[in-house]
């Protein structure tokens, strides 16, 4: 498989990246680990004439307890056992992204901005041409939900739900400087499913920041996939919070892998704060999340099954949530 010609740029500072990105707006993609972008480019999916490689930008690397550089590789986070012990739910998610060989190059930023997936999209040019293409690349209709306005491809990143429940914030650099926003606000549910973030032309994801959690916070990420050592999520459920049988002190729940964007359910979890977390309360929450999600038939497992598994995985995530231990 051959890549179409493109010009490769190798800036070394964030300012240089933003300058280039502003100049090339619409005609380029960032290249982080390339484990998502290059397979798509090989299948001629929305390839651009310029690639801006982030490899040499030192500021984007590294991690601490409270900051993950956008270019930090998943394998390096995984290898840090202290980080693993202190961030239980997030570590579940990191260790279940793809395979060790993919995690060796795959980065945090690339994972948060991984392209959405669909059975009719992640195919060769030849395969797609036989169906007349689709909205998300080269065409004007959708084969999953027939209409001509919106794409329903599935958000298949594992880190986003696990970071959403930790109230993570993202640091973005753009033409007008730096800003921080909650991770949830990075994703734009108002888009057409093809444009899915609030990043403007020239914007670069610099880092993820993890605010300190409540004492005794527990967390868990549960992933449903076909081959447990390989596949993209068909569903991912993340929970984090501090609770005991007496009282919930804080609680967040997020779901990925079933819709076009990852989603947090604060309106369901906020009312539980201050109440005891009984098995009945967990069941009610699981049922309600399951009722609300809207998977469509564009991944391997049928949407009805994925939806039914939402309740199961929410219950399991609570049952298996564990506390981070210091050091």
């Amino acid at each position, binding site marked *: 498989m051959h890549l179409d010609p493109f010009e*490769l740029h190798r800036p070394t500072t964030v300012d240089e990246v933003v300058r280039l990105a502003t100049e090339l707006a619409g005609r380029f993609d960032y290249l982080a680990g390339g484990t998502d972008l290059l397979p798509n480019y090989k299948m001629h999916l929305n390839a651009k004439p310029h690639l801006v490689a982030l490899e040499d930008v030192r500021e984007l690397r590294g991690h601490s307890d409270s900051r993950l550089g956008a270019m930090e590789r998943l394998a390096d986070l995984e290898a840090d056992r202290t980080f693993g012990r202190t961030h239980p739910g997030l570590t579940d998610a990191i260790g279940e992204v793809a395979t060790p060989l993919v995690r060796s190059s795959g980065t945090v930023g690339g994972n948060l901005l991984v392209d959405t997936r669909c059975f009719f999209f992640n195919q060769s040019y030849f395969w797609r041409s036989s169906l007349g293409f689709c909205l998300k690349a080269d065409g004007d209709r959708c084969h999953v939900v027939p209409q001509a306005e919106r794409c329903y491809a599935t958000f298949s990143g594992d880190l986003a739900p696990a970071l959403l429940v930790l109230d993570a914030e993202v640091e973005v650099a753009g033409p007008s400087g730096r800003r921080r926003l909650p991770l949830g606000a990075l994703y734009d549910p108002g888009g057409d499913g093809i444009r899915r973030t609030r990043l403007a032309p020239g914007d670069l994801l610099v880092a993820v920041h993890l605010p300190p959690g409540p004492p005794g916070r527990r967390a868990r990420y549960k992933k449903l996939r076909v081959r447990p050592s390989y596949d993209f999520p068909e569903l991912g459920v993340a929970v984090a919070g501090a609770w005991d049988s007496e009282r919930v002190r804080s609680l967040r729940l997020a779901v990925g892998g079933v819709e076009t964007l990852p989603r947090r359910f604060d309106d369901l979890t906020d009312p539980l704060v201050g109440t005891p977390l009984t098995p009945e309360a967990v069941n009610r929450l699981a049922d309600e999340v399951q009722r609300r999600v809207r998977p469509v038939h564009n991944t391997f497992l049928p949407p009805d099954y994925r939806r039914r598994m939402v309740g199961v995985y929410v219950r399991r995530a609570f049952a298996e949530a564990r506390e981070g231990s210091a050091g």
Partner: protein
Amino acid sequence: MSSRELLSFRLNGHPVEVPCPSPRVLLDLLREDLRLTGTKRGCDLGTCGCCAVLVDGRPTLSCLTLARLVDGRSVETIEGVSPPRGLNPVQAAFVAHGATQCGFCTPGFVVTATALLRSNPRPSRAEIERAISGNLCRCTGYIKIIEAIEDAARTEE
């Protein structure tokens, strides 16, 4: 940057300089330009692990790595992890255990396992299983591969 700028890096310990256009991935450069065909092209999409090489000692899928980005780095392929004569302990154990059938996946497994044993000389069985979980084999059923790597870890001590 001209599209055929010279790329220079260390390949299996030796410096090389080779013209390389931007869209060339490391796998194609190795196999087609440098004629090192030990590294295999299975899926070309990141799924099979047949194309694994070491970049600065790190296991890397060469089908998803732009060759230009290894400029100034050190690349080791299956040809390089084998000693000039004979076999390295992982290879010898693969032979002894019959851990190879058609052999197409073997270079990828050997590279991945060699990197594992360098960073973790006494891996548990679970650690071995995890480390090779991005390498696909359609013939052996994996058991002999896992046993061979366990054995290589024992004999390397």
